[in-house]
């Protein structure tokens, strides 16, 4: 995956996490195939919107009320997006700072792939905790949730570094118009 901006792709992070879960036996191999099928849509934002939509239990001739099965890929797409959004919008400071933070909240890739901005250490920790919380709420075992969240935090941290290495100009541009994060 090539990056045109600083940060890391949402889908890269999630794919990496699912690969990690499958290779460590936290999830069955079908997880990866399902994620591939899901990510055939190049627009991450659209995928997340679709996943966040209320599930329809009353579909005619469906099985009816069926419990959420804890499918890791979709859960992570939603959880990572949600947690990153939460930590990046809780910016304090001037109105301008908050406004620009809000505007940067969902930076768009030209092809529509969501970029996750660089996060500070504190933000990474918050993201980790939020992901664990959401995964556990979706009945993912706690140990799996911690391991996967750890992996994602690492990806986000490394992704940021990698992004800076690939696109120093973009980094500079970003630094110019970005207020202090954290």
């Amino acid at each position, binding site marked *: 995956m090539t990056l045109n901006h600083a940060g890391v792709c949402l889908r890269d992070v999630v794919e990496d996490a699912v690969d990690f879960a499958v290779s460590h036996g936290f999830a069955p191999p079908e997880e990866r195939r399902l994620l591939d099928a899901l990510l055939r849509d190049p627009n991450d934002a659209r995928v997340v919107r679709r996943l966040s939509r209320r599930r329809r239990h009353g579909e*005619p001739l*469906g*099985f009816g009320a*069926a*419990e959420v*099965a804890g499918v890791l890929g979709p859960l992570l797409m939603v959880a990572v997006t949600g947690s990153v959004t939460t930590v990046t919008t809780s910016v304090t400071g001037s109105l301008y700072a908050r406004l620009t933070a809000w505007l940067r909240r969902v930076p768009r890739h030209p092809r529509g792939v969501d970029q996750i901005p660089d996060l500070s250490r504190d933000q990474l920790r918050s993201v980790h905790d939020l992901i664990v919380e959401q995964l556990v709420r979706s009945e993912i075992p706690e140990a799996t949730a911690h391991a996967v969240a750890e992996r994602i935090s690492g990806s986000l941290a490394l992704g940021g570094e990698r992004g800076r290495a690939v696109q120093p100009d973009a980094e500079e541009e970003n630094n110019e118009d970005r207020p202090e994060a954290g």
Partner: protein
Amino acid sequence: MSAGRRAPQRPDERVLVSGTTLRFAVLVVLILVSSAWMSLLPLAAGHTSSGSTSIGDSSGCDLAAGGDPGRIGGPVPQEDTSAYRTCIDKVSSPSDPSPWLSAVWPLLVVAAAAVLMWAIPAWKARRSRVVPLEAVDPDGEIHAVLRQLSTVAGLDHLPRVIVDPAAVSGGAVVFGSNRRPTIRLHGGLIVRRHTDPERFRAVVLHEYAHIRNGDITLTYLTVALWRAFLGLVLLPYLAVLLTLAVWMALFFIGVRAPLDPEVMRGLGGDFPIVLVKLLATPAILAVLVHLSRADVLRTRETYADLAAVRWGADPRIWTGAAHLADTSDSGPRRTHRALLTFREAWRTHPRGELRQESLSDPAPLYAARALPMFLTGVLAPLLDFQLSLYGAVFHLGWLDNGAWALSAVLVAGVAGTALWRAAINAVFTGRRPSSGARAGLWLGAGMAAGELAGYRVGLDSLLPAFPPALLLPVCAGAFFGWWTTQCARLWSRTWPGTALRPVLILGVLVGSVLLSSWFAWWQGYGVTFANGLSPSTQEMRQSLTNGAAPAEVAQQDGIITAISTLWPPMTSFTTWPLTLVSVALLWLTPLAAWAVRFADGARQRSTGAAAKTADRLPEQNPLPPLGQILLPGLLGGILATCVVAGSMAYMHTWPPPSLTARILLIWTFLAWVFIALLTGAAVAGTTAAVRGNSHRLLWALIAAQIAVLVGLAGTILVTSLDGCVPQLSTLRLNCQPHPTPSTWLGLRLMVGPVLVLAVPVAAIATAAVTGIRRIGPTRQSPPPPYTQPQPLRTRLVLAVLGVMVTVITLADLIAPVIPHSTPSDARLTAEARNAGSPRLRALQVYAWEKYGGLELARRYVTAQTRMKDLLLKDPRHIDESEGISVCRQLQAVTRDAADYFPVPDARAQVHWNAFVTGNAQGSRNCMRALKASDGPKFLGSVEELTKAMHAYASMRERNDKVMRAGGLPERS
């Protein structure tokens, strides 16, 4: 409910028809019928905006004829006159697109639904959202499992399987059509296959069951039709109504001048009610369709669950679903139970705990539940008024009969099947049987509610003029439920075959005939009575008292009043050709059970049930000895005969009537016969009900009808003795071996209404007996010992009764005494026609003028002006040829005036009559005088014409007054 609880015995759910297919079909019919009539408003509005005509055209003719178009399906007084046809021809333009467009509109809805049937699966399986199974199952492992399960489910081919990777729940859904089904597995199900293979199996088998049960096409056909209806009919309809509401607001605030009064007919002070009713129809339709569809789908889900378990799915999977439902419903659980039931009604899947319960005890599948019965009841009047409206607009009188037949088949099909299934289940399981009356009450309540929602009670009123009349459909529904359930219980235990499906279908067919008679009477006459329009008592009173001396009339005033009040409505009982057939079916259907042998099938069922519930259902023939039922009937008939003989002996003591008052004497005697026969029926019905332990209603009906027949035979015998036995000489003095022709005719008149009335009499007697038994101390008498019936004697008795009934029924069908007619033929009485608000009267007079009256006035004034000019030109010398031309012109106006509608106001009509008569005479004399050059005669004719002119002026003055009183603007 614990999973380990012992499952009660039950019939296999596949043995009987489920009735859900018919309920889907009902929804389809409802949507199509609604498409036809609801498209009328938008199309009419669209046509109006093109400017060629106006909405109120044909309504204007109805008003001009003295009718009330607000009463949908109500009679139009002058419908069969040339004046009405001319009026309609005048107002309908050849380019009027409404008739063919509104006929084509339902076809458009069907075409759109067909497109949607193709589009919905395509949309659900679009490539951007789903992937083929192979994409997530490259090694074919899941495919193999699916194939193996499809063999278990007995599917010919493996359906197309796709996967929705974004669906995280462990479910699946099936769509497409029965021939080309597609299963969409949720991503969550794929993932859980390893950890929970039993769940995977259960879900897939559940979806296969939907395919096997043929649920897909009907379900998605309903969805597609509803969406097409929504887009092509409902939304345009609502748009027109909202436009209408805005217009009305503009009229109220004075921004717009009012439209023609007949267009504004429903837009006066009553407009809010009209708007509410017009809006209520689609709202009720939407709720009805949604609730019915949801209910049917819930039933289908339960069938699919049962099939899946039968094919080996683990029932504990549904325990998980119940747990899930418990979690989601934890809030409402603490609230009122009704709220839970209400929420349940809107769901397409039963609650988890209900699904789990249904697996161990599918009793709800067999219950005749309140909601479906109510919804089915609402359906009948909705269908009827929509078809009637459509028929009224396009003058398709046959649609009335079609509506009754359709409603009867659909309601009997849905409600009858439910009642039969409930009764059969009770027999199989040995449970305490329900009477069916409660379920029937819900059906009747639905029929009454549907009537309120329809327009037959008036477009501008929420309630009919006589609201208690709406209790009649409620009672009819309760009776239908009660009777059907008892018949089903009886026949399910006596049917000789091993399969019960044929008897269920026969029972539903009989129910259709019964309901067609009810709908024919209610929609044809009952609604009219509910609207406060009762037949004239004056006409009957006049014919009774015609020629009688005042003293005689005064002496018999009570009975004259009673006959003239009660008899005219009773003539409406047998105007539907199948009424007496229905009455015969009511009691011959149970009676026929004696004609069949208590054969192997029935014995097997009885013993099967007995083995399971030995304490409740001992092996016995449910039929009591036939004599136990026949005897009360026979005694009731003898009692009726005795009362008739007694009344003859009593009437014999009266002073001989004058010759002209004989008709009153005959009617008085017939009234006694009427009372005697109904008394006999009541006594027989009550006795049979008291003696019966079960099926009381059926025994009471049989006994009551036999009492009427025996009483009738006895009456014929006794009246044959009239003149032969001195003490019984009432109507004639000489002895002849048969009744007098007038008595014979009277008895023939009476037989239909008496047979019909004996039904409610028996039902009321049975209800009273049942009620008293429940209130009083429980005294369960042991069932009579089973005795092998004597087939020959039994069948002989049944044959005699059958022949009697067939003769009476065929006589009524072939040569009816009371003519069979449809309500569109029904004539309202003068009083009824003149009933109506001042506003309606004003609109009628306005329309009368607009649709012909003013044109006649213009022609009349032109002719009169010519006459005046002629007289003023030279009074001493009249130009004869010019004079003759003027007189001819006046004559032509008179002829057309005589052909036109009578003025809808009685007082104005008096003046109009005087005008027409005077003008006819004057113009005729005028012509004769001029041809004969007879001056004095000519002057006489001018005087007649002047008088006619005064009458005309009075009529116009009266019309103006009526219109002012109704709030219509002054004529410009």
